[in-house]
Every structure is written in C-alpha cells, then in structure tokens.
C-alpha cells in the first residue's frame, strides 16, 4: 500500500515539474509554447480568472546596505517579480517610475525609497491606475541574520495569513488587497514550485503591519504523505526577513493622484530627530537660566544676619 501511494504521487508531481523546466528554458517559443496557452485556456472556459501579476521591485539611489539586502530578500521571495536598477528618487520620481513599470510590462511595483541613509519608505503601487500606498519601514531584519534559521524552496507559493483586524476599516481592506496581489505568487507561474513550505504572516499590531516569513516543517514518515496526525506536530521556523510597515498615505493613482487616506498619528522621523536635537540643545541654556534664577532668588530674599553667629567665638 505504502509503495503504491508513493508512486502515484511522484508521477503526479513530475509532469508539472517538467513543464516548469521546459518553459523556463525556452520562454520565447511562441508558436506552440506558452503564448498560445492562455488563449487556449480562455477559449476553453471563458471568463476563467488568471493571475498575471508582475511586480517591479526597485529602490532609490543612495540606499543603505541593510535596506538593499531587505529588497533583495523580497526579490528572492517573489518569483513573479522583476528587479530593476536604482532610480533617482528626488525629482519627478512618480512619472519615471510609472514609465519604468510600463516598460517592464509589470502590473504593480514595490519601490524602496531610502532617505538620508536612515529612513526607508516603501511604496506599494498598482500600476497603470492606482492606488498606491506609502509606508514607513521599521524594525528591519534581513534574511542573512543567523538567528533566523529556517529555509524554504525558492519560488514555492506562500500561504498568506492575515490577522482579522485587516477587515476592520476601509484602508486596511485596500492594503490587504494590495498585499494579496503583490505578495501572493500567481498560481501557474512558470517559476513557482508545486509545494507549499512557507507562510507569510501579516498582522496589525499598534496600527503597524508586521511581516514575518516562516518555514513549515512537518515530520515526514516513509510514505511521504502527512500522517493524519502529522499536522498537529507541524512547527514553524522563521526564515526572515522581518519588517514593520507604518502606513503613511494612500494615493488614488500610481505614485501620485488624490490622497485617499492619511495616517493621523504619523510623525515623520525627521521631526522626531529635530525634536530630539532641540531637547538636547536646550540643556546648556536651561542650566544658565537656572543659575541666574537662583542668583535672583538669593538677591531678593537675603538671609537675615545670624544672631548666634559669634556666640562661641570669644
């Protein structure tokens, strides 16, 4: 029994695998190859949904190494993405980015924008006509860190888990939809692998979106199938990266357009730093002020001459 099952599964798996390889090697063979395929499918079952998401991942110039590594990690997690050169972020960024996305025939974009070598902003945009979300990225840990001991197949489709408070409000719903479309790997993408061995966790805590990526480890027995009780013994090992997204604004268009949402609690890191500096700068002035005040106080309420001062002098 056991053997039979194994055979059947491997057989079922292999053809899909082969398909993957062949398409990967010869993507341009349009006469019989993949270009025909979707059309055939469309005619077969009209109105069938096919996810053709393509994500452009890029970053601004003068990005920090840590943030660059984060970007590369994201690239390795998304088999359906295209990485592009750094983009000059200062002027007319939106227009150039839109152009670039169109040029690469992508449908969405992740843009890592680094300012002052310190602050990382992440733009998540659907491309031809919006919306786009701008996040501040905090608490970044890359996959290279040795604490994160998990590992998983490159290109296997992730399971996306969301905490239930994503359905609480309109802007969270919109962000969730964007995340599903951008971070979910399309089902029959040529680079994706047929198994599921990692899971993304998106969770809203304290109005920030926290991202975690875990490897799924299930104890295998000989038959390669999960024992029915195997799911209970399932454990997760963190793979990384980790980051925390603080939504700043949601725009109607891609990289621009009317503002639909603005985070009312947001303080930009620039302001925080300025404030800190100001507090530090005030130290000396405060000291001088305190001194003069003390002097004034002493002058106004002078001590009465002590009548017993020379009592023991003799």
């Amino acid at each position, binding site marked *: 029994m056991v053997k039979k099952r194994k055979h059947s599964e491997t057989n079922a798996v292999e053809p899909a695998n082969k398909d993957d390889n062949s398409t990967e090697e010869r993507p341009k063979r349009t006469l019989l190859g993949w270009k025909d395929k979707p059309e055939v499918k469309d005619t077969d079952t009209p109105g069938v949904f096919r996810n053709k998401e393509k994500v452009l991942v890029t970053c601004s110039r003068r990005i920090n190494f840590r943030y660059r590594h984060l970007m590369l990690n994201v690239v390795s997690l998304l088999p359906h993405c295209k990485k592009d050169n750094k983009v000059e972020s200062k002027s007319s960024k939106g227009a150039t980015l839109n152009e670039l996305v169109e040029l690469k025939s992508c449908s969405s974009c992740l843009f890592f924008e680094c300012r002052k070598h310190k602050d990382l902003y992440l733009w998540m945009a659907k491309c031809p006509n919006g919306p786009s979300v701008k996040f501040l990225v905090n608490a970044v840990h890359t996959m290279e860190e040795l604490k994160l001991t998990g590992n998983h197949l490159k290109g296997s489709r992730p399971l996306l888990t969301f905490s239930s408070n994503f359905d609480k409000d309109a802007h969270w*719903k919109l962000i969730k939809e*964007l995340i599903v479309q951008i971070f*979910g790997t399309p089902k029959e993408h040529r680079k994706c*692998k047929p198994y599921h061995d990692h899971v993304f*966790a998106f969770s809203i805590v304290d109005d920030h979106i926290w991202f975690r990526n875990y490897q799924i480890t299930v104890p295998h027995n000989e038959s390669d199938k999960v024992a029915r009780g195997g799911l209970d013994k399932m454990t997760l090992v963190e793979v990384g990266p980790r980051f925390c997204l603080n939504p700043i604004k949601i725009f109607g268009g891609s990289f621009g357009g009317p503002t639909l949402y603005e985070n009312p609690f947001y303080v930009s890191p620039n302001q925080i730093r300025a404030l800190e500096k100001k507090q530090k700068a005030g130290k000396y002035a405060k000291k001088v002020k305190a001194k003069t005040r003390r002097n004034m106080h002493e002058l106004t309420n002078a001590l009465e001459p002590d009548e017993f001062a020379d009592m023991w002098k003799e």
Partner: protein
Amino acid sequence: MGISKKDAALFDEDGFEDEDVNDLNEEISESESESESEDEEDVKLAEPSDKAIYNREGLEEKLQDVSWPENVGWIHKLTIDIDQEQEVDVNDDLKREASFYTQALEGTRQAFEKLQSMGLPFLRPPDYYAEMVKTDAHMEKVKRRLLAEQKEMQEAEERKKARESKKLAKEIQAQKMKERAKQKKEEIESVKKWRKQRQQSGFAGDVNDGELDLAFKDGKSFERSNKKRPGVAPGDRSGGKVRQSGGKGKKKKGKDFRDSKFGFGGRKGMKKQNTADTTNDLRAFNKGSNVAGNKKRKRIAIG
C-alpha cells in the same frame, strides 16, 4: 474634502512636511515630559490630527477597481484570516512574536486542510531537491552558529557543576577530618577510662576481659584496612604496581612509583613473598624451553 489642495504637494513632500513641522512641534511639546524616553519606532501623535484625510468612498471605490473578481478560487489567493484573541502589547517582544507565530501556525493548519480536501500535493517529498532561498553556504553558517551556541551552553553548565562539586568535596573532607578527630579523642578517652577503672579496682581483676572488650569492642583500631587486594604482596605499598609493570620495559617512572618500589618506609622483605596468585601463575614455565629439552634428549639418544 481637501483632496484638490493636497494634489500638488505629493511629490515635494519634504516641503509639505516642513509646513506642518511648526504646528506639530507645538502639539508634541505639550506632551514632551512623558514622551522623552520614547523609542524612535514608537513615536506617535498623542491624538489624531484633525487635518488627516480619510476618503472612505474613494478607498472603497478603489478597492472595487483593484480587487479580483468575487468568484476567484481560494487556490489563487491562498489567504487565511485568523482572529487575534486579544490585544497584543507591542513592546513585549516575546508575546508579540508568539502571537505572530500562532497566527501563522493556525493559518497553515487551515490552509493545509483545505489543500488536502482538494487533493493537491502540498508537502515537499524528501527527494525533491530544488534551489532554496538561502544558500547551502549560508545554512552551514547558521548550523555552525547553533552548534557553537550549544557547546558554549554545555561548557558553562559543566563549569558550574565542577564548581559545585568542588564545594561539596571540601565540605565532605572537612566533615571527615572532624569525625576522625572525634574518634581519636574517644579512643583516648576510653583508654583513660579503662586505666582509671583498673586503678580504682586496684589491679584486682587483671584478666578482666569484659572491660577490655568495652574499650576495643570491635577491635577496629588494631585491624588494618580490610580491603584485601588480590595479587598484592602484604608489604607492597604500590598496590601491585611493581609486579604489573615490572616486565613491561622502560616506562617513565613517577615519583610515587619509585617510592613504592625502592621504599619510602615500609617492610621490604614481604615483597618477595609468594601469594596464592603468584604460586598459581604459570607464565614463567614456557613451552619453548620444553621443546629445547626434548631436542637435547633426542640428541643424547642419537649420540
């Protein structure tokens, strides 16, 4: 709403922020005293600024525009929503991570059940090798670090144990010494007592065995240690070492060994006495000599 006003300010956001800095500072400085120690990550406005835009209709409209058709199969999305049981404190790292973990685990369970009911393969068979997200070199590094950590922990534990056992041994030793001193004292006492008694009775019962027995009841003090070691001559202090390593060529001889062999006190003559073991030891009679004897005999016979 103020959409049209903000339109222009999207791309020169630095300027836009500068405008707001002044009134923001006022707001923050009010709560300055509390928020001094706050971490960079956690800084927030105390209360929501009233100028913030929230265009609910716009958001919903966009959501409609963007989202996939309603009847898309779950297999395309692979999304699972998990209820968070209670509010998680952000600053408590352990609890926060645990909540993420449970969310992911719960989600995976549900997803796997769905996949299983669809009859799709979802677990990687152990003989399916493909490119991984992290390279083997990197995983090797991870492994090495884990091992090093484990080793360090073990070593620390061992050190701790050794320290404790040393302490314990010291205590035991002290106790032993005390006991020995006590025993000695008691023995002396008993002898004195016996002598006194004898004096009192005027040396009357010279052969008063009963009294004597009281003093040395078990005869312990006269008996030598009752550990009888096999193969060790009565006078040998080395504990049979001489005999064991006598024939084994040149070994480096330690000080204690040489003392035991050449004497540092103790009786010498007893070393040469036979014991039951040595008499039964027939190694000295080897067969080779027997053969030689036979030859001789033969030769004699011939001659």
